[in-house]
């Protein structure tokens, strides 16, 4: 009879676990929706920002009288990448499948491959911070437990800093390693170069036909204020994508866990019933054979 008790206890415990995973799945679904909404809301802004950057750069490129300043170089004549700044975005919490493992693997590969020296590393999320500690990389900036509403502050800090560093010649490029949000169930770890950037030529030729814009107060001042804003927008997009990916990954992982728990409960219930049946049969046999005797 001890077997029956044990199995009952196990079923109860698996059921509890299933309840937890189901709840986590539901919470992740809500958070995923929130992140996605922010992402969708950012899209018109990001698109327009891209347009404006194209126009300004096309304008400066097309006019030989304008001397490109340091900010313009970020778009026009990239320096050789010797020192780079890297922003690594992972999650604060676990239980989200391969989300962290994949992006950290991509980060390791990037760190091993790159010719440049990583002079400045920002980590977003506890898992990223742990990864940096384990690999004995000193993270210059740590952003842990950032809520969705706090993203703006984080990206402003990083982008202002990065633009100033580029200006001062301390860094030659800014990279972000994060999970690209394909769909709620699919994420791709991605290494993204924020700047210097290659602008596609199509946009430039389109702009050439229009009357050139006046850039006030002067072209370089415009680019100098534009660059940190642009970097900020891109970073914000990356952070939101990562957040949406995280919740998507957690949702998928928890869905799987709930299903597994369901299967386990079914199996255990079957075993339990078999044992129960066996014991009843045994008792009947005992009674029958006792009566016969």
């Amino acid at each position, binding site marked *: 009879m001890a077997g029956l008790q044990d199995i009952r206890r196990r079923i109860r415990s698996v059921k509890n676990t299933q309840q937890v995973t189901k709840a986590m799945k539901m919470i992740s679904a809500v958070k995923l929706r929130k992140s996605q909404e922010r992402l969708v809301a*950012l899209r018109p802004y990001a698109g327009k920002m891209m347009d404006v950057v194209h126009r300004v750069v096309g304008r400066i490129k097309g006019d030989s009288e304008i001397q490109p300043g340091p900010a313009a170089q970020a778009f026009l004549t990239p320096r050789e990448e010797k020192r780079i700044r890297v922003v690594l975005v992972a999650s604060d919490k676990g239980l989200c499948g391969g989300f962290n493992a994949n992006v950290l693997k991509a980060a390791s590969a990037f760190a091993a491959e790159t010719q440049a020296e990583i002079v400045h590393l920002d980590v977003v999320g506890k898992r990223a911070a742990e990864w940096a500690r384990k690999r004995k990389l000193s993270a210059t900036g740590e952003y842990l437990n950032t809520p969705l509403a706090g993203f703006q502050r984080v990206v402003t800090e990083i982008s202002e800093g990065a633009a100033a560093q580029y200006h001062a010649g301390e860094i030659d490029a800014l990279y972000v390693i994060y999970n690209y949000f394909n769909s709620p169930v699919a994420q791709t770890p991605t290494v993204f170069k924020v700047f210097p950037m290659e602008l596609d030529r199509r946009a430039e030729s389109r702009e050439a036909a229009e009357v050139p814009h006046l850039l*006030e107060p002067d072209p370089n001042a415009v680019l100098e204020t534009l660059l940190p804003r642009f970097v900020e927008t891109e970073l914000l997009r990356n952070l939101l994508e990562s957040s949406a990916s995280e919740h998507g990954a957690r949702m998928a992982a928890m869905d799987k866990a709930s299903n597994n728990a369901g299967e386990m409960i079914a199996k255990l219930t079957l075993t339990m019933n078999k044992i129960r049946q066996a014991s009843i049969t045994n008792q009947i046999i005992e009674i029958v054979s006792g009566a016969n005797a």
Partner: protein
Amino acid sequence: MSQTIKLEVVTPERPVFSAEVAEVQFPTASRGYYGILPGHTPLMTAVGDGLLYYVQDGQKHWLTVFGGFAEVGPDRVTILARESETVDMIDLERVEADRQHALKLLKEAQTEHDLASAQAALDASLIRLQAAGHPAGHGF
């Protein structure tokens, strides 16, 4: 040439405003206010903090803008604002509370940095109050 301009104001959080208007005026970071009528020469500049107004059906309407970027074409004005609100979005009680808080911070500020951020918060709340105090149609 069209008689209206398409005014679009977007922030990273949401598209704030988009409509055909007759006239726009917005604050710039370095050169005071720019007034834009249809057919304006293409222009790009950084936006400052302050009040933007547009004229639609002969009525003046106000928006707040805080930093960002403006792109002007002959038939459009696109404002990429760091923050922006229509008058409807402004919560007067909250702004008043912000203003009081900023005033308190301003008095207690010890460092140059504290002082600057308190002043910025105060300015932002004042701009919002000013916007809320301009119902549509007034201010000509």
